[in-house]
Protein backbone atom coordinates (compact mmCIF):
# COMPACT_ATOMS: atom_id res chain seq x y z
CA UNK A 1 0.00 0.00 0.00
CA UNK A 2 1.33 3.44 -0.93
CA UNK A 3 0.31 6.34 1.26
CA UNK A 4 0.97 9.95 0.41
CA UNK A 5 0.46 12.85 2.80
CA UNK A 6 0.50 16.39 1.51
CA UNK A 7 1.51 18.59 4.39
CA UNK A 8 3.84 18.08 7.29
CA UNK A 9 2.33 19.34 10.51
CA UNK A 10 0.14 17.92 13.26
CA UNK A 11 -2.44 16.29 10.99
CA UNK A 12 0.33 14.69 8.93
CA UNK A 13 2.03 13.32 12.03
CA UNK A 14 -1.30 12.04 13.32
CA UNK A 15 -1.82 10.33 9.99
CA UNK A 16 1.62 8.70 10.01
CA UNK A 17 1.08 7.43 13.55
CA UNK A 18 -2.41 6.29 12.63
CA UNK A 19 -1.19 4.38 9.56
CA UNK A 20 1.62 2.77 11.50
CA UNK A 21 -0.72 1.60 14.25
CA UNK A 22 -2.30 -0.62 11.59
CA UNK A 23 0.19 -1.09 8.75
CA UNK A 24 3.92 -1.36 9.48
CA UNK A 25 4.96 -2.13 5.92
CA UNK A 26 3.21 0.18 3.43
CA UNK A 27 5.23 3.09 2.06
CA UNK A 28 4.45 6.50 3.43
CA UNK A 29 5.53 9.64 1.65
CA UNK A 30 5.19 13.10 3.14
CA UNK A 31 5.33 16.08 0.84
CA UNK A 32 5.95 19.48 2.35
CA UNK A 33 6.65 22.85 0.80
CA UNK A 34 8.48 23.88 3.93
CA UNK A 35 12.15 22.95 4.30
CA UNK A 36 11.87 21.81 7.93
CA UNK A 37 11.17 18.51 9.61
CA UNK A 38 7.90 18.69 11.45
CA UNK A 39 7.78 21.49 13.98
CA UNK A 40 5.06 22.96 16.10
CA UNK A 41 3.59 25.99 14.40
CA UNK A 42 1.80 27.31 17.47
CA UNK A 43 5.19 27.67 19.14
CA UNK A 44 6.43 30.42 16.86
CA UNK A 45 5.37 33.10 19.34
CA UNK A 46 7.25 31.28 22.10
CA UNK A 47 10.27 31.20 19.82
CA UNK A 48 10.19 34.96 19.47
CA UNK A 49 10.12 35.54 23.21
CA UNK A 50 12.86 33.02 23.81
CA UNK A 51 10.75 30.51 25.66
CA UNK A 52 11.71 27.83 23.20
CA UNK A 53 14.15 27.40 20.37
CA UNK A 54 14.15 25.70 17.01
CA UNK A 55 15.53 22.50 18.49
CA UNK A 56 12.78 22.29 21.10
CA UNK A 57 10.11 23.25 18.60
CA UNK A 58 10.49 19.91 16.91
CA UNK A 59 7.08 18.33 17.17
CA UNK A 60 8.57 14.87 17.01
CA UNK A 61 12.06 13.54 17.70
CA UNK A 62 14.64 13.59 14.92
CA UNK A 63 14.25 9.88 14.24
CA UNK A 64 10.49 10.19 13.74
CA UNK A 65 10.51 9.68 9.97
CA UNK A 66 13.12 6.94 10.07
CA UNK A 67 11.42 5.02 12.83
CA UNK A 68 8.10 5.21 11.04
CA UNK A 69 9.55 4.40 7.66
CA UNK A 70 8.44 7.69 6.14
CA UNK A 71 9.93 9.08 2.96
CA UNK A 72 9.81 12.80 3.37
CA UNK A 73 10.03 15.26 0.53
CA UNK A 74 10.84 18.64 2.07
CA UNK A 75 10.70 21.89 0.18
CA UNK A 76 8.62 20.28 -2.55
CA UNK A 77 5.30 21.69 -3.50
CA UNK A 78 2.44 19.54 -4.64
CA UNK A 79 0.53 21.23 -7.42
CA UNK A 80 -2.05 18.67 -8.43
CA UNK A 81 -3.73 15.48 -7.43
CA UNK A 82 -5.17 13.13 -10.03
CA UNK A 83 -7.64 10.82 -8.32
CA UNK A 84 -8.03 8.56 -11.33
CA UNK A 85 -4.38 7.98 -12.13
CA UNK A 86 -3.67 8.23 -8.42
CA UNK A 87 -0.70 10.48 -8.69
CA UNK A 88 0.41 13.72 -7.12
CA UNK A 89 2.23 16.15 -9.36
CA UNK A 90 4.95 18.22 -7.84
CA UNK A 91 6.07 21.65 -8.92
CA UNK A 92 9.24 20.01 -10.17
CA UNK A 93 7.21 17.91 -12.57
CA UNK A 94 7.72 14.71 -10.59
CA UNK A 95 4.78 12.37 -10.19
CA UNK A 96 4.26 10.64 -6.87
CA UNK A 97 1.92 7.65 -7.06
CA UNK A 98 -0.42 6.77 -4.24
CA UNK A 99 -3.13 4.34 -3.25
CA UNK A 100 -4.50 6.50 -0.45
CA UNK A 101 -3.81 10.16 0.06
CA UNK A 102 -4.26 12.68 2.83
CA UNK A 103 -4.66 16.38 2.36
CA UNK A 104 -3.05 17.96 5.39
CA UNK A 105 -2.52 21.19 3.60
CA UNK A 106 -3.40 23.52 6.45
CA UNK A 107 -4.29 27.12 5.83
CA UNK A 108 -2.75 30.34 4.73
CA UNK A 109 -2.98 33.83 6.11
CA UNK A 110 -5.75 35.90 4.74
CA UNK A 111 -4.62 39.36 3.81
CA UNK A 112 -7.58 41.52 2.88
CA UNK A 113 -7.17 44.25 0.34
CA UNK A 114 -6.00 47.36 2.23
CA UNK A 115 -5.28 50.59 0.58
CA UNK A 116 -1.62 51.49 0.48
CA UNK A 117 -0.47 48.13 1.79
CA UNK A 118 2.10 47.97 -0.97
CA UNK A 119 3.71 51.09 0.50
CA UNK A 120 4.53 49.28 3.72
CA UNK A 121 8.11 48.16 3.66
CA UNK A 122 8.14 45.69 6.54
CA UNK A 123 5.01 43.62 6.59
CA UNK A 124 4.60 40.08 7.84
CA UNK A 125 2.20 37.28 8.41
CA UNK A 126 2.50 35.11 11.48
CA UNK A 127 1.93 31.46 10.79
CA UNK A 128 5.04 29.58 9.87
CA UNK A 129 8.53 29.31 11.22
CA UNK A 130 9.84 31.39 8.32
CA UNK A 131 7.30 34.11 9.14
CA UNK A 132 8.56 34.21 12.71
CA UNK A 133 12.20 34.24 11.67
CA UNK A 134 11.62 37.05 9.23
CA UNK A 135 9.61 39.06 11.74
CA UNK A 136 12.19 38.47 14.46
CA UNK A 137 14.96 39.71 12.18
CA UNK A 138 13.06 42.93 11.56
CA UNK A 139 12.64 43.82 15.24
CA UNK A 140 14.71 46.01 17.49
CA UNK A 141 14.19 47.75 20.80
CA UNK A 142 13.01 50.79 18.94
CA UNK A 143 10.55 49.07 16.70
CA UNK A 144 6.96 50.18 16.81
CA UNK A 145 4.74 47.32 15.76
CA UNK A 146 1.25 47.48 14.37
CA UNK A 147 -0.75 44.30 14.40
CA UNK A 148 -3.91 44.15 12.37
CA UNK A 149 -6.11 41.53 13.99
CA UNK A 150 -6.83 40.96 17.67
CA UNK A 151 -7.44 37.26 17.33
CA UNK A 152 -5.41 34.37 18.65
CA UNK A 153 -2.61 34.78 16.12
CA UNK A 154 -2.28 38.52 16.42
CA UNK A 155 -2.26 38.54 20.17
CA UNK A 156 0.09 35.57 20.52
CA UNK A 157 2.39 37.47 18.19
CA UNK A 158 2.06 40.51 20.42
CA UNK A 159 3.01 38.51 23.47
CA UNK A 160 5.93 36.92 21.66
CA UNK A 161 7.51 40.19 20.64
CA UNK A 162 6.49 42.43 23.55
CA UNK A 163 9.84 42.19 25.28
CA UNK A 164 11.75 42.97 22.11
CA UNK A 165 10.09 46.10 20.78
CA UNK A 166 9.26 49.62 21.81
CA UNK A 167 5.52 49.53 21.34
CA UNK A 168 2.71 47.42 20.04
CA UNK A 169 -0.62 48.62 18.73
CA UNK A 170 -3.41 46.28 17.73
CA UNK A 171 -6.26 47.20 15.41
CA UNK A 172 -9.34 45.11 14.89
CA UNK A 173 -12.62 45.69 13.23
CA UNK A 174 -14.40 43.80 15.98
CA UNK A 175 -15.33 45.68 19.11
CA UNK A 176 -13.44 43.26 21.32
CA UNK A 177 -10.36 41.13 21.31
CA UNK A 178 -10.40 37.37 20.75
CA UNK A 179 -13.97 37.57 19.49
CA UNK A 180 -13.93 34.00 18.26
CA UNK A 181 -13.40 32.52 21.71
CA UNK A 182 -14.45 35.11 24.29
CA UNK A 183 -17.62 36.93 25.22
CA UNK A 184 -17.57 40.67 25.79
CA UNK A 185 -16.92 40.45 29.51
CA UNK A 186 -14.13 37.91 29.27
CA UNK A 187 -12.63 39.80 26.41
CA UNK A 188 -12.52 42.99 28.46
CA UNK A 189 -10.67 41.24 31.27
CA UNK A 190 -8.03 39.96 28.89
CA UNK A 191 -7.79 43.31 27.15
CA UNK A 192 -7.14 45.10 30.44
CA UNK A 193 -4.47 42.55 31.24
CA UNK A 194 -2.80 43.09 27.88
CA UNK A 195 -3.07 46.83 28.21
CA UNK A 196 -1.20 46.60 31.50
CA UNK A 197 1.62 45.09 29.48
CA UNK A 198 1.66 48.21 27.35
CA UNK A 199 -0.23 46.90 24.36
CA UNK A 200 -2.58 49.47 22.90
CA UNK A 201 -5.80 48.60 21.17
CA UNK A 202 -7.90 50.28 18.54
CA UNK A 203 -11.05 48.23 18.47
CA UNK A 204 -14.12 48.61 16.31
CA UNK A 205 -11.74 50.31 13.95
CA UNK A 206 -9.73 49.45 10.90
CA UNK A 207 -6.99 50.76 8.72
CA UNK A 208 -8.35 53.04 6.04
CA UNK A 209 -5.02 53.54 4.36
CA UNK A 210 -1.33 52.86 4.81
CA UNK A 211 1.16 55.41 3.84
CA UNK A 212 4.62 54.03 4.42
CA UNK A 213 5.01 53.93 8.16
CA UNK A 214 1.68 55.37 9.09
CA UNK A 215 -1.69 53.73 9.30
CA UNK A 216 -4.63 56.02 8.98
CA UNK A 217 -7.62 54.58 10.79
CA UNK A 218 -11.26 54.79 9.76
CA UNK A 219 -11.96 56.57 13.02
CA UNK A 220 -9.56 59.24 11.92
CA UNK A 221 -6.71 58.25 14.21
CA UNK A 222 -3.19 57.68 13.06
CA UNK A 223 -0.79 54.99 14.16
CA UNK A 224 2.85 55.36 13.26
CA UNK A 225 4.69 52.06 13.02
CA UNK A 226 7.85 50.43 11.75
CA UNK A 227 6.68 46.87 11.32
CA UNK A 228 3.26 45.63 10.29
CA UNK A 229 1.88 42.20 11.13
CA UNK A 230 -1.27 41.19 9.35
CA UNK A 231 -3.17 38.61 11.37
CA UNK A 232 -6.69 39.10 10.20
CA UNK A 233 -7.41 35.45 9.75
CA UNK A 234 -6.60 32.35 7.82
CA UNK A 235 -8.12 30.53 4.88
CA UNK A 236 -7.94 26.77 4.42
CA UNK A 237 -5.80 25.45 1.61
CA UNK A 238 -8.42 23.64 -0.41
CA UNK A 239 -7.23 24.18 -3.95
CA UNK A 240 -5.61 20.75 -4.41
CA UNK A 241 -8.58 18.95 -2.97
CA UNK A 242 -11.03 20.94 -5.04
CA UNK A 243 -8.94 20.19 -8.12
CA UNK A 244 -9.19 16.51 -7.33
CA UNK A 245 -12.95 16.77 -7.22
CA UNK A 246 -13.45 16.75 -3.47
CA UNK A 247 -16.46 18.52 -2.11
CA UNK A 248 -15.31 21.76 -0.56
CA UNK A 249 -17.32 24.15 1.52
CA UNK A 250 -15.41 26.65 3.56
CA UNK A 251 -12.92 23.84 4.04
CA UNK A 252 -12.56 20.39 2.58
CA UNK A 253 -15.63 18.45 3.62
CA UNK A 254 -14.82 15.30 5.59
CA UNK A 255 -16.83 12.75 7.47
CA UNK A 256 -16.10 11.22 10.87
CA UNK A 257 -13.60 8.91 9.24
CA UNK A 258 -11.75 11.91 7.78
CA UNK A 259 -12.69 10.76 4.29
CA UNK A 260 -13.44 13.31 1.59
CA UNK A 261 -16.16 12.87 -0.98
CA UNK A 262 -13.66 11.19 -3.34
CA UNK A 263 -12.68 7.57 -2.61
CA UNK A 264 -9.16 7.05 -1.25
CA UNK A 265 -8.72 10.76 -0.62
CA UNK A 266 -8.73 11.89 2.97
CA UNK A 267 -8.22 15.24 4.64
CA UNK A 268 -7.41 16.46 8.11
CA UNK A 269 -6.56 19.58 10.04
CA UNK A 270 -6.98 23.25 9.32
CA UNK A 271 -7.83 22.69 5.67
CA UNK A 272 -11.04 20.88 6.61
CA UNK A 273 -14.43 21.62 7.88
CA UNK A 274 -16.05 19.11 10.16
CA UNK A 275 -19.05 18.66 12.41
CA UNK A 276 -18.92 20.74 15.60
CA UNK A 277 -20.89 18.54 17.98
CA UNK A 278 -21.88 21.47 20.16
CA UNK A 279 -23.76 23.17 17.35
CA UNK A 280 -24.32 20.34 14.93
CA UNK A 281 -22.97 22.47 12.13
CA UNK A 282 -19.97 21.99 9.87
CA UNK A 283 -17.19 24.40 10.74
CA UNK A 284 -13.50 24.83 10.41
CA UNK A 285 -12.09 23.85 13.79
CA UNK A 286 -8.54 24.95 13.26
CA UNK A 287 -6.87 23.83 16.46
CA UNK A 288 -4.00 21.47 16.81
CA UNK A 289 -5.67 18.69 18.84
CA UNK A 290 -8.41 18.35 16.23
CA UNK A 291 -5.81 18.32 13.46
CA UNK A 292 -3.91 15.50 15.11
CA UNK A 293 -7.03 13.49 15.90
CA UNK A 294 -8.43 13.91 12.40
CA UNK A 295 -5.07 12.98 10.93
CA UNK A 296 -4.79 9.91 13.10
CA UNK A 297 -8.33 8.90 12.23
CA UNK A 298 -7.53 9.30 8.55
CA UNK A 299 -4.36 7.25 8.93
CA UNK A 300 -6.09 4.34 10.60
CA UNK A 301 -8.84 4.28 8.00
CA UNK A 302 -6.41 4.69 5.10
CA UNK A 303 -4.54 1.65 6.38
CA UNK A 304 -7.68 -0.45 6.50
CA UNK A 305 -8.53 0.00 10.17
CA UNK A 306 -11.71 1.40 11.61
CA UNK A 307 -11.71 4.69 13.45
CA UNK A 308 -14.20 7.47 13.83
CA UNK A 309 -13.56 10.89 15.28
CA UNK A 310 -16.90 12.38 16.07
CA UNK A 311 -16.19 14.54 19.06
CA UNK A 312 -14.75 17.61 17.42
CA UNK A 313 -15.43 20.85 19.23
CA UNK A 314 -13.84 24.24 19.16
CA UNK A 315 -11.42 24.49 22.05
CA UNK A 316 -8.52 26.68 22.96
CA UNK A 317 -5.99 27.00 25.69
CA UNK A 318 -4.00 30.13 25.50
CA UNK A 319 -2.11 32.37 27.84
CA UNK A 320 -0.93 35.92 27.70
CA UNK A 321 1.70 37.20 30.10
CA UNK A 322 0.74 34.69 32.76
CA UNK A 323 -3.03 35.02 32.35
CA UNK A 324 -4.43 31.71 31.24
CA UNK A 325 -7.59 31.27 29.23
CA UNK A 326 -9.27 28.02 28.40
CA UNK A 327 -12.42 27.89 26.31
CA UNK A 328 -14.36 25.16 24.64
CA UNK A 329 -17.59 24.55 22.79
CA UNK A 330 -20.17 27.12 21.84
CA UNK A 331 -21.96 29.70 23.89
CA UNK A 332 -25.57 29.45 22.84
CA UNK A 333 -27.71 28.46 25.76
CA UNK A 334 -28.19 29.31 29.38
CA UNK A 335 -25.13 31.01 30.82
CA UNK A 336 -23.87 30.77 34.37
CA UNK A 337 -21.19 33.26 35.30
CA UNK A 338 -18.92 33.49 38.30
CA UNK A 339 -16.42 36.28 38.68
CA UNK A 340 -13.76 37.14 41.17
CA UNK A 341 -11.20 39.89 41.09
CA UNK A 342 -8.81 37.83 39.04
CA UNK A 343 -10.94 35.15 37.46
CA UNK A 344 -13.85 34.77 35.13
CA UNK A 345 -15.88 31.70 34.54
CA UNK A 346 -18.83 31.10 32.27
CA UNK A 347 -20.59 27.83 31.66
CA UNK A 348 -23.21 27.48 28.98
CA UNK A 349 -25.81 24.75 29.11
CA UNK A 350 -28.58 23.72 26.78
CA UNK A 351 -30.83 20.67 26.56
CA UNK A 352 -29.36 19.09 29.71
CA UNK A 353 -25.85 19.30 28.22
CA UNK A 354 -22.84 21.45 28.85
CA UNK A 355 -22.27 23.22 25.57
CA UNK A 356 -19.37 25.50 26.22
CA UNK A 357 -17.32 27.32 28.79
CA UNK A 358 -14.87 30.13 29.31
CA UNK A 359 -12.30 30.07 32.07
CA UNK A 360 -9.99 32.98 32.63
CA UNK A 361 -7.41 33.07 35.37
CA UNK A 362 -8.28 29.82 37.07
CA UNK A 363 -8.14 27.01 34.54
CA UNK A 364 -7.47 24.13 36.90
CA UNK A 365 -8.91 20.79 35.75
CA UNK A 366 -10.72 22.39 32.82
CA UNK A 367 -10.56 19.08 30.99
CA UNK A 368 -13.33 17.76 33.18
CA UNK A 369 -15.63 20.37 31.61
CA UNK A 370 -14.29 19.65 28.15
CA UNK A 371 -15.02 16.00 28.67
CA UNK A 372 -18.61 16.77 29.70
CA UNK A 373 -19.04 18.57 26.39
CA UNK A 374 -17.29 15.99 24.26
CA UNK A 375 -18.96 13.02 25.89
CA UNK A 376 -22.35 14.79 25.86
CA UNK A 377 -22.82 13.80 29.47
CA UNK A 378 -26.44 14.46 30.49
CA UNK A 379 -26.16 16.94 33.33
CA UNK A 380 -28.90 15.25 35.32
CA UNK A 381 -26.68 12.18 35.63
CA UNK A 382 -24.04 14.13 37.57
CA UNK A 383 -24.02 16.67 40.38
CA UNK A 384 -23.89 19.62 38.04
CA UNK A 385 -24.12 22.24 40.76
CA UNK A 386 -21.03 20.77 42.34
CA UNK A 387 -19.03 20.52 39.17
CA UNK A 388 -20.13 24.02 38.21
CA UNK A 389 -18.40 25.41 41.29
CA UNK A 390 -15.21 23.56 40.55
CA UNK A 391 -14.35 20.86 38.03
CA UNK A 392 -14.21 17.67 40.07
CA UNK A 393 -14.77 13.96 39.75
CA UNK A 394 -16.85 14.05 42.93
CA UNK A 395 -19.69 15.21 40.73
CA UNK A 396 -19.92 11.82 39.08
CA UNK A 397 -21.80 8.86 40.52
CA UNK A 398 -19.64 6.55 42.59
CA UNK A 399 -19.75 3.68 40.09
CA UNK A 400 -18.76 5.95 37.23
CA UNK A 401 -15.91 7.28 39.33
CA UNK A 402 -14.85 3.77 40.28
CA UNK A 403 -14.61 2.94 36.60
CA UNK A 404 -12.62 6.09 35.94
CA UNK A 405 -10.11 5.61 38.74
CA UNK A 406 -10.07 1.87 39.06
CA UNK A 407 -10.96 0.61 35.63
CA UNK A 408 -8.89 0.21 32.56
CA UNK A 409 -7.73 3.62 31.53
CA UNK A 410 -8.53 4.34 27.94
CA UNK A 411 -9.72 7.78 27.13
CA UNK A 412 -9.22 9.65 23.96
CA UNK A 413 -11.25 10.91 21.07
Amino acid at each position, binding site marked *: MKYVIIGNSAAAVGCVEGIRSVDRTGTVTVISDEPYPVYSRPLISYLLCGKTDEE*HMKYRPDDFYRKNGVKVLLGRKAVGVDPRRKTVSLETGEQVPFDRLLFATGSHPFVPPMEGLESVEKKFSFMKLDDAKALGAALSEKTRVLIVGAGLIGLKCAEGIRGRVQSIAVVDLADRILPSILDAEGSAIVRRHLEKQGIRFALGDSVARFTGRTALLKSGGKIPFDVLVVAVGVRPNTRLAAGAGCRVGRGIAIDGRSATSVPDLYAAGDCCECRDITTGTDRILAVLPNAYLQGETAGVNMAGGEKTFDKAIPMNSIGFFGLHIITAGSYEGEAWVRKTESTYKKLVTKDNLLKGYILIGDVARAGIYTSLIREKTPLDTIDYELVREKPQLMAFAADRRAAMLGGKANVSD
Partner: protein
Amino acid sequence: MKRVYVNEKWCLGCHLCEYNCAFANSGETDMAGALKDVKIHPRIRVEGDNHISFAVSCRHCDDPICVKSCIAGALSVRNGVVHRDRDKCVGCYTCILVCPYGAVMPAPDGKAIQKCELCTDNAFGEPACVKGCPNGAIVFEER
Protein backbone atom coordinates in the same frame (compact mmCIF):
# COMPACT_ATOMS: atom_id res chain seq x y z
CA MET B 1 1.19 -2.37 32.23
CA LYS B 2 1.12 -1.53 35.92
CA ARG B 3 -0.81 1.57 36.77
CA VAL B 4 -1.94 3.48 39.82
CA TYR B 5 -5.52 2.61 40.70
CA VAL B 6 -7.61 4.26 43.35
CA ASN B 7 -10.39 2.71 45.40
CA GLU B 8 -12.32 5.40 47.19
CA LYS B 9 -13.83 2.84 49.53
CA TRP B 10 -10.53 2.78 51.40
CA CYS B 11 -9.42 6.36 50.93
CA LEU B 12 -9.25 8.12 54.28
CA GLY B 13 -8.71 11.58 52.88
CA CYS B 14 -5.49 11.78 54.87
CA HIS B 15 -3.68 13.48 51.98
CA LEU B 16 -0.46 11.58 52.68
CA CYS B 17 -0.24 10.68 49.00
CA GLU B 18 0.07 14.35 48.18
CA TYR B 19 2.91 14.83 50.61
CA ASN B 20 4.67 11.65 49.56
CA CYS B 21 4.37 12.80 45.96
CA ALA B 22 5.74 16.22 46.74
CA PHE B 23 8.62 14.66 48.64
CA ALA B 24 9.39 12.12 45.92
CA ASN B 25 9.59 14.90 43.37
CA SER B 26 11.50 17.32 45.57
CA GLY B 27 14.88 15.78 44.86
CA GLU B 28 15.58 15.88 48.60
CA THR B 29 16.39 12.87 50.73
CA ASP B 30 14.68 13.98 53.92
CA MET B 31 10.97 14.61 53.95
CA ALA B 32 10.99 17.14 56.76
CA GLY B 33 13.78 19.05 55.08
CA ALA B 34 12.02 18.92 51.73
CA LEU B 35 8.54 19.99 52.80
CA LYS B 36 8.91 22.07 55.92
CA ASP B 37 7.35 25.51 55.46
CA VAL B 38 6.80 24.73 51.81
CA LYS B 39 3.56 24.90 49.88
CA ILE B 40 3.38 21.59 48.12
CA HIS B 41 2.48 21.03 44.48
CA PRO B 42 1.76 17.34 44.30
CA ARG B 43 0.93 15.55 41.07
CA ILE B 44 -1.72 13.53 42.81
CA ARG B 45 -4.61 15.40 44.39
CA VAL B 46 -7.20 14.26 46.87
CA GLU B 47 -10.81 15.22 46.30
CA GLY B 48 -13.48 15.11 48.95
CA ASP B 49 -13.76 15.03 52.71
CA ASN B 50 -13.30 12.25 55.23
CA HIS B 51 -16.57 10.63 54.24
CA ILE B 52 -15.98 10.28 50.52
CA SER B 53 -12.55 10.97 49.20
CA PHE B 54 -10.22 9.72 46.53
CA ALA B 55 -6.95 10.63 44.96
CA VAL B 56 -6.64 11.58 41.33
CA SER B 57 -3.48 11.34 39.32
CA CYS B 58 -2.61 10.68 35.68
CA ARG B 59 -4.30 7.50 34.45
CA HIS B 60 -1.66 6.91 31.80
CA CYS B 61 -4.41 6.24 29.30
CA ASP B 62 -3.76 3.65 26.60
CA ASP B 63 -4.89 6.25 24.13
CA PRO B 64 -3.88 9.50 25.80
CA ILE B 65 -5.65 12.54 24.48
CA CYS B 66 -3.18 14.85 26.21
CA VAL B 67 -0.34 13.41 24.16
CA LYS B 68 -2.34 13.77 20.97
CA SER B 69 -3.32 17.30 21.83
CA CYS B 70 0.05 18.60 22.97
CA ILE B 71 0.94 21.45 20.68
CA ALA B 72 4.63 21.20 21.43
CA GLY B 73 5.16 17.47 21.14
CA ALA B 74 6.28 17.67 24.76
CA LEU B 75 4.09 14.79 25.90
CA SER B 76 4.87 11.30 24.77
CA VAL B 77 4.34 7.73 25.87
CA ARG B 78 7.43 5.96 27.13
CA ASN B 79 6.98 2.34 28.09
CA GLY B 80 3.35 3.11 28.77
CA VAL B 81 4.09 6.13 30.94
CA VAL B 82 2.78 9.45 29.71
CA HIS B 83 5.92 11.51 29.95
CA ARG B 84 6.46 15.23 29.86
CA ASP B 85 9.55 16.80 28.36
CA ARG B 86 10.02 19.81 30.56
CA ASP B 87 12.28 21.55 28.10
CA LYS B 88 9.81 21.28 25.27
CA CYS B 89 6.73 22.21 27.27
CA VAL B 90 5.85 25.88 26.90
CA GLY B 91 3.04 25.87 29.44
CA CYS B 92 0.18 26.40 26.97
CA TYR B 93 -2.04 24.13 29.12
CA THR B 94 -3.74 22.43 26.19
CA CYS B 95 -3.32 19.18 28.11
CA ILE B 96 -5.21 20.73 31.02
CA LEU B 97 -7.91 21.65 28.51
CA VAL B 98 -8.35 18.07 27.38
CA CYS B 99 -7.56 15.78 30.31
CA PRO B 100 -10.93 14.38 31.40
CA TYR B 101 -9.58 13.48 34.83
CA GLY B 102 -8.19 16.90 35.60
CA ALA B 103 -4.93 15.13 36.33
CA VAL B 104 -2.54 17.56 34.65
CA MET B 105 -1.63 20.71 36.47
CA PRO B 106 0.66 23.68 36.08
CA ALA B 107 4.14 23.22 37.48
CA PRO B 108 4.84 25.47 40.48
CA ASP B 109 6.59 28.07 38.34
CA GLY B 110 3.69 28.12 35.86
CA LYS B 111 6.09 27.83 32.94
CA ALA B 112 5.30 24.22 32.19
CA ILE B 113 2.86 21.58 33.24
CA GLN B 114 3.47 18.72 35.58
CA LYS B 115 1.83 15.37 35.96
CA CYS B 116 2.33 12.00 37.54
CA GLU B 117 4.99 9.98 35.80
CA LEU B 118 4.69 7.04 38.19
CA CYS B 119 7.90 8.22 39.88
CA THR B 120 9.89 7.04 36.88
CA ASP B 121 11.32 10.53 36.70
CA ASN B 122 12.60 10.70 40.26
CA ALA B 123 14.80 8.72 42.60
CA PHE B 124 11.90 6.74 44.02
CA GLY B 125 11.41 4.56 40.96
CA GLU B 126 8.03 3.30 42.17
CA PRO B 127 4.99 5.41 42.94
CA ALA B 128 5.55 7.09 46.29
CA CYS B 129 1.83 7.72 46.70
CA VAL B 130 1.18 3.99 46.62
CA LYS B 131 3.99 3.14 48.98
CA GLY B 132 2.83 5.70 51.49
CA CYS B 133 -0.92 5.02 51.35
CA PRO B 134 -1.82 3.74 54.79
CA ASN B 135 -4.96 1.90 53.76
CA GLY B 136 -4.33 0.33 50.41
CA ALA B 137 -6.59 2.87 48.71
CA ILE B 138 -3.98 3.50 46.04
CA VAL B 139 -2.41 0.49 44.42
CA PHE B 140 0.08 -0.03 41.63
CA GLU B 141 -0.82 -3.09 39.65
CA GLU B 142 -1.74 -4.66 36.36
CA ARG B 143 -5.45 -4.69 35.56
